[in-house]
């Protein structure tokens, strides 16, 4: 690149020379450049380039026009269109050509019998030769459309006209997910919105024993007017797949490795194929779960997890590589739960995958609720005092719901500490799969592993109090070292910390002990639903708000369980930390057995030290599991 002065000089001479008649230029250049030969050559070259650029119309028409083809996505214009605009076709009138997808050409048409708009899909000819397959497809297409699930594209008719097989379906004015994505990444809320709709469609189809077999962004449409997602082509993959022997992959007939579309146009869909599909093995519903996992991955990451220079390379990657974590590509923070969901959907062994679309749907919906809720909280609260005032009003509703939930109580008393609205409401329906272990009747402390001299375990905690007057925070919050008698309108928060990592569970027992226990930690918003706490990490309970005492007087017990390993019995009750149960372990037998365990274990070898500076309680125990009861008296 030229020096600035040189550049100025070149451009000045160039512009002046250009303004002259051609025959005057040579003289002008000699005059201006003198003995500087390279300067003269440079300007001459530019003048020549100017002439060529003008003659060729270089960058003359706007860029958008020139690269319009980039926007056409998968739709390629073919001269060999089988139907023409304005043509009658059976009882349909062809209005426009919508494009050519993997499964044939698609036209917009009017059904003249019913005067409704439809999308007409003309199936590739070679597909239509196998009668048995056609019948099976006709059946599946009909069954799928009778499911009447809003996310499944409705099939009106499957028929033949002018010796062409066609499918008449609901017309969706919108774009395919492929077009919608267009190499970009979507926001998490949008990803969850779209994926829950895809999985809802699968759930309904799978219940009717229909496997899609070809879930990919091209087969998902997003309706323009309301962003409703429609999954296209149920059962079509089965119809159009080539026999595996033809595609040279395995010997079974189940692998839709390549779909023949139009002559000379082979559309590969390997990137979305499940490992069993890629190996030509029989597929079932779980193959759709895999492909959906890839689609979710792509929406977040902007790329599919398994790629290769050729289809064969891609297949090898599908079979052997692990998908890189989403966080590696995503532009926003990817919740651990989403990583987990995708990982589970993409388990190589289908026995380890989500077994049903319903299970996947539950996890996706819960995550969506959590994100919605979190963002609501972010909007409506800031940490500390503000959270308390904000959540105060919500508390009424919470208490009411809790009352409803406390089964078997004739008095309808509320129990325990009514959370200041946030933690328990937020303990929403995030039925994380790991939480759904079957509850066991009798808690058994973990089986002894190596008993050899464990280092002493330590857990520090303190309570912060926020006084309230007439519903408003009063004075600054302060830390307590020792128990006090809490007044009715005090709000409290418990903070814990340990120099070692470990598993923490906190449960609340009401004053008269008659109510079921309530799990306060972990909750889906506190520590992402995990009981595992890093060393020196302060855990606030509730995380962003305050506990508020209810009107029932007495002494609340907060049971703190600090363990070197996860305890299955407590992991099992995490499932109650959801929007409906509000943490209340409504299974009385289970709750009672946990209480028994807590009381029994709390005496074990626990050293309790209280310091005033800083105000805190230090628990020390040589045991693998330490249990301690924090008493909060309120009158």
């Amino acid at each position, binding site marked *: 690149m030229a020096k600035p002065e040189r*550049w100025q000089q070149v451009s000045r001479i160039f512009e002046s020379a250009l303004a002259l008649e051609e025959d005057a230029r040579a003289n002008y250049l000699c005059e201006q450049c003198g003995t500087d030969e390279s300067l003269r050559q440079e300007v001459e070259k530019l003048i020549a380039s100017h002439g060529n650029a003008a003659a060729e119309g270089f960058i003359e028409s*706007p860029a958008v026009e020139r690269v319009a083809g980039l*926007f056409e996505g998968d739709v390629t214009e073919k001269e060999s269109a089988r139907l023409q605009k304005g043509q009658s076709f059976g009882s349909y009138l062809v209005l426009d050509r919508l494009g050519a997808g993997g499964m044939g050409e698609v036209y917009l048409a009017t059904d003249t019998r019913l005067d409704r708009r439809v999308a007409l899909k003309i199936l590739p000819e070679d597909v239509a030769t196998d009668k048995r397959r056609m019948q099976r497809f006709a059946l599946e297409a009909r069954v799928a459309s009778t499911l009447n699930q809003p996310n499944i594209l409705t099939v009106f008719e499957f028929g033949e006209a002018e010796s062409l097989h066609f499918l008449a379906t609901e017309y969706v004015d919108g774009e395919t997910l492929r*077009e919608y994505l267009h190499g970009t990444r979507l926001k998490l809320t949008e990803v969850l919105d779209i994926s829950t709709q895809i999985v809802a469609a699968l759930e309904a189809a799978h219940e009717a024993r229909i496997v899609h077999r070809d879930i990919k962004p091209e087969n998902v449409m997003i309706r323009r007017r309301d962003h409703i997602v429609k999954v296209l082509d149920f059962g079509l993959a089965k119809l159009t797949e080539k026999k595996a022997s033809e595609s040279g992959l395995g010997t079974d007939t189940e692998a839709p490795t390549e779909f023949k579309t139009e002559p*000379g146009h082979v559309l590969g869909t390997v990137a979305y194929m499940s490992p069993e599909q890629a190996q030509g093995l029989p597929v079932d519903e779980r193959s759709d779960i895999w492909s959906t996992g890839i689609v979710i991955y792509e929406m977040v990451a902007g790329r599919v997890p398994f790629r290769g220079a050729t289809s064969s390379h891609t297949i090898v990657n599908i079979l052997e590589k692990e998908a890189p974590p989403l966080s590696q590509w995503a532009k926003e923070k990817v919740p651990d739960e989403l990583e987990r969901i995708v990982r589970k959907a993409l388990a190589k062994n289908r026995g380890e995958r989500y077994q049903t679309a319903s299970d996947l749907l539950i996890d996706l919906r819960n995550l969506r609720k959590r994100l919605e809720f979190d963002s609501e909280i972010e909007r409506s609260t800031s940490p500390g005092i503000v959270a308390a005032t904000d959540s105060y009003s919500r508390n009424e509703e919470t208490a009411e719901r809790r009352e409803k939930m406390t089964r078997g109580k004739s008095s309808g008393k509320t129990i325990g500490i009514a959370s200041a609205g946030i933690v328990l409401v937020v303990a929403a329906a995030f039925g994380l799969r790991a939480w759904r272990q079957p509850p066991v009747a009798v808690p058994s402390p973990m089986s002894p592993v190596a008993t050899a001299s464990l280092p002493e375990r330590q857990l520090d905690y303190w309570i912060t109090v926020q006084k309230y007057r007439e519903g408003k925070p009063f004075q600054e919050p302060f830390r307590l070292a020792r128990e006090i008698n809490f007044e009715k309108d005090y709000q409290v928060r418990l903070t814990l910390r340990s120099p070692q990592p470990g598993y923490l569970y906190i449960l609340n027992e009401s004053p008269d002990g008659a109510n079921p226990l309530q799990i306060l930690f972990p909750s889906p918003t506190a520590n992402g639903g995990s009981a595992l706490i890093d060393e020196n990490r302060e855990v606030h309970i509730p995380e962003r708000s305050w506990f508020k005492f209810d009107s029932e007087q007495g002494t609340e017990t907060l049971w703190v369980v600090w363990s070197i390993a996860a305890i299955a019995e407590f992991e099992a009750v995490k499932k109650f930390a959801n929007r409906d149960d509000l943490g209340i372990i409504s299974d009385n037998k289970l709750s009672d057995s946990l209480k028994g365990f807590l009381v029994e274990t709390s005496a074990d070898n626990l050293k309790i030290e209280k310091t005033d500076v800083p105000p805190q309680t230090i628990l020390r125990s040589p045991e693998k599991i330490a249990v301690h009861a924090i008493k909060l008296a309120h009158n």
Partner: protein
Amino acid sequence: MSKNASISPHEITQLLAEWSNGNQAALDKLYPLVYEELRRLAHRFMRRERKGHTLQTTALINEAYLRLVDQKHVHWANRSHFFGISAQIMRRILVDHARGYLREKRGGGAQRVSLDETALVTKERARELIMLNEALDNLAKQDPRRSQVVELRYFGGLNNDEIGEVLKISANTVTRDWNMARAWLYQQLSGA
């Protein structure tokens, strides 16, 4: 699922005003909104008008402008600012697209083997666009104004008068800048 539902036309108008008064932070907020709007419009226009019609870049940007801003507080100064930024954004959208297109064609996600001639042309043009983009970046290093003239005209679809308005130079200067820049870019791209 609307991607920019949270910002009102009034706020966008405000941001434009702030930006034209020299507040760079306002531009940071505007950029993604305009990007999104233009991307959507470009897609829509492409699909609707690709048969035979030529696409009017200015019409596209104008529609984006009308959709984004508060009609009651439109100022011409803001409008030319908007066109300036839009050209820059269109450039990015197209280059991003071209890159994505080539990535896909190279055999990424959807392994596509296409013998389609239009696809080959598109591929060629995508490459060309990326090269032009780089050359334009190089031009900007030594002659930012000439690079801007190209950006406004080629990516923003503005005519010389409009470019002059945005850059506060005369239409004649725009023509001279264009000639020099185009010749230089042609040279770079043709390897002459």
